């Protein structure tokens, strides 16, 4: 293995983690990664970082939709439904 292989793998790692690569390419990367300790280590870190990112939520929550706004939304919904049935 040489660093050029690692660089090629590095460019495709998100798609590799998502299993979103053309048939054969994932297997090719599998073959490289399983024999390359730095790539194993990096993929592990990226996989954990992505998994953590997927759980992201800002530390601020919205206030509930005010009653007046909810009523206006309900009216807009009713109007759209009526138009859809025409």
């Amino acid at each position, binding site marked *: 293995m040489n660093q050029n292989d690692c660089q090629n793998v590095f460019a495709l790692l998100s798609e590799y983690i998502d299993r979103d690569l053309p048939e054969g390419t994932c297997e090719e990367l599998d073959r490289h990664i399983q024999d390359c300790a730095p790539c194993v280590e990096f993929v592990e870190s990226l996989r954990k970082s992505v998994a953590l990112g997927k759980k992201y939520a800002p530390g601020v929550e919205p206030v509930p939709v005010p009653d007046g706004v909810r009523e206006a939304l309900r009216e807009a919904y009713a109007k*759209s439904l009526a138009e859809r049935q025409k």
Partner: protein
Amino acid sequence: MASDSKEQQDAAQSDLQLARELIAGSIGAFEHFVDVYGRKIFRYSYTMCGHREDAEEIAQETLMKVFENLGQLREPEHMKAWVFRIAKNACFSKHRKSVFAPTRELSLEELRPHRDNESGELDIADWSAWPDAAAQNSELHQALDRAVQKLPELYRSIFLLRDVEGLSTADCAKILDVSEDVVKTRLHRARLMMRADLDAFMKASHTNSGHTKGVQA
């Protein structure tokens, strides 16, 4: 083809059901949609704009446009993408200049970790010390928040839509008016940037706790 997780498939199925019930006129679906999507749109716009009041306005404007234009929703399976496209445009309008305007793409070289020429080892933290339960760690949450805020806006938006909301690459491309290849390129850079920031946080944590790579203090 991307293999969606069971969780993503269940979420897509439940969104499809919600869309069908909304179109059918269910008041229960209306209430559920306002609560769930109001929160989703608020989180997206707050993370993009950083202002609570703006994010609340954007959420309400988006919900209103959704209900006013429900007749235009022809494909219930794409409801979520349709809603987020409206939300993205509302963010755009609120900020006159687009926070989604393209800037220079970061090169992968800038995001590659340093590698020791002699040992071949990468200069990265020991991630094995952080099990999934680390998601409960509040310092890590703060580090994640900083990493997300540090992302350039066009990467942040892709990260939120693709990774947090679980939208497909094709849907993200439609929402943001870019090609699927651009979505993949930017998502990869966003993830690499966040990984690098979290890596730095973990190295600092390990140093503070006396833990070094491969050695439990």
